[in-house]
């Protein structure tokens, strides 16, 4: 079934103008990235740049290596070949100390939220803060935690345990936990996976709000086209371990290429209108 795709609204303008972004050095630069797990080649030469204050959405099917890509960017996985430069530093040549210093400038929102389930919400946010910033008074800690929770609209959940939160709330707390260190780059791994459309929309709004308030650059990993259209300044499609197409949402999907159309049609016609 190949119904005519609905005309999607224009993606929101990124905070920095394209010309300005083009002149700035990329905050993330990925070149020739390769990664295999045993015989399975997941990434086969990925090239991607992210400019300052730009949101780049990486789209692809499940198992296409999207999460592997951002885990390599933050140094959680070692690439087999290729180069990843984040904020001017080659990630995989850094010492442990320098890598930690870089990670303080990069926020990572996990697909599963990855909240520490033995800690309540306050402690989840307090933990990275206390471990990374010495000499903060308890009043300052509380103030920063309250500010981060207010940013995600969950200031009243401070004493709740992660098990008492809904999926959407957990995602928001996960994002708040990364914001507590005031990162320059945000990496979102499937931010809307498993959420209802309304909550997904709220998470999309939150991603844009974070970009606006903190001036962050982001890579957003998703297979949700609504999320891609609403949050991404640029969209990069990952197919067969390579970036297949990259550009604005309308440019990427304004094609009859079956690889792209198939992905689009599945999202917008099989599952209904976004």
């Amino acid at each position, binding site marked *: 079934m190949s119904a005519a795709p609905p005309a999607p609204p224009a993606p929101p303008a990124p905070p920095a103008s394209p010309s300005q972004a083009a002149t700035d050095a990329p905050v993330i630069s990925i*070149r*020739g990235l390769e990664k*295999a797990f*045993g015989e399975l080649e997941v990434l086969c*030469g990925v*090239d*991607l*740049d992210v400019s300052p204050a730009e949101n780049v959405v990486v789209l692809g099917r499940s198992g296409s290596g999207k999460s592997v890509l951002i*885990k390599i960017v*933050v140094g*959680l996985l*070692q*690439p*087999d*070949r*290729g*180069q990843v430069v984040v904020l001017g530093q*080659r990630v*995989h*040549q850094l010492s*442990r100390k320098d890598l*930690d*210093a870089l*990670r*303080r400038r*990069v*926020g*990572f929102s*996990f*697909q*599963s939220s*990855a*909240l*520490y*389930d*033995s800690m309540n919400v306050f402690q989840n946010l307090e*933990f*990275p803060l206390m*471990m*990374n910033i010495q000499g903060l008074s308890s009043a300052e800690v509380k103030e920063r935690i309250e500010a981060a929770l207010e940013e995600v609209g969950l200031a009243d959940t401070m004493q709740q345990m992660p098990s008492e939160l809904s999926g959407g709330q957990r995602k928001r707390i996960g994002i708040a*936990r*990364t914001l507590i*260190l005031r990162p320059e780059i945000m990496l979102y791994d499937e931010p809307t996976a498993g959420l209802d459309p309304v909550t997904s929309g709220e998470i999309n709004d939150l991603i844009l709000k974070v970009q606006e308030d903190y001036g962050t650059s982001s890579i957003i990993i998703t297979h949700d086209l609504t999320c891609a259209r609403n949050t991404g300044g*640029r969209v990069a499609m990952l197919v067969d371990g390579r*970036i297949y*197409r*990259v*550009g*604005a949402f309308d*440019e*990427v999907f304004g094609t009859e290429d079956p690889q792209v159309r198939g992905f689009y049609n599945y999202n917008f016609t099989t599952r209904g209108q976004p």
Partner: protein
Amino acid sequence: MSTLPPEPVEVDPPSPRSRRDAVVITPHVDAFGVGMRDGAAFFARFFAEAVRPPFHIRELIRQCYEVGYRSLPLITVTGFITGIVFTKQSRPSLAAFGATSWLPSLITIALVRSLAPLVTALICAGKVGSSIGAELGSMKVTEQIEAMEVSAINPFKYLVVTRTLATTLMVPLLALYFSFVGLVGAYMNIHGQEAASLASFLKSGFSTITFLDVWSSMSKAIAYGFTIGLIASYKGFRATSGTQGVGRAANASVVLAMFVIFIEEVLIVQIVTFLRDL
């Protein structure tokens, strides 16, 4: 639509780790080799991380409380019952030779030299080892350990070093406590049968205990505590495959820790026997 500029790609050489992972002899040999290599690396990393700041003292104290204080009820009951049962079952054999007066010495030697460290370690391997394996395994499969890493927190130092140090410190103390309650149980049994005084029981019991006995007992308990903490942490850190993996990690923590404890028992007894004969 923009495409990426076709600039020459400057790439880093393949990582040493990926080259190592590519070497496969046979699946079983390779898995065993990888397990040994990773286990040795984990062991070596513990010492490298343990001596390097920052030191998570608060977490260490919390773990000592979890391992030590929370094991007290189980150790109390087990130690007390061991003392009573061992005394009751030893009495007929000694009575046959008219040597019931040796009962305090026999019990004290058995408890201090062997039973206290070994039984305490086996209890802790079951109670504490499974708990650490399951906790860290659960954290691994739910990406909580990776969340620590991306927050610039060293999970090895925060989770592994603190737990392993806690078991290394607490198991010897629990073994001492086990000896104490075991002797209380033994004394109550002897006192019930023969109305022996506490002073004569202690005098008779400790007359045969040497410094080497106490030293070897504590050495064993320290080694067992370290084994329990490190193996449980290792198994938890390597957990995969969701909840099933967590269960496997908890189970493997106990089984492997007990296996290694028995090997250590044999080795340490050999060393102590050699020292005793010098």
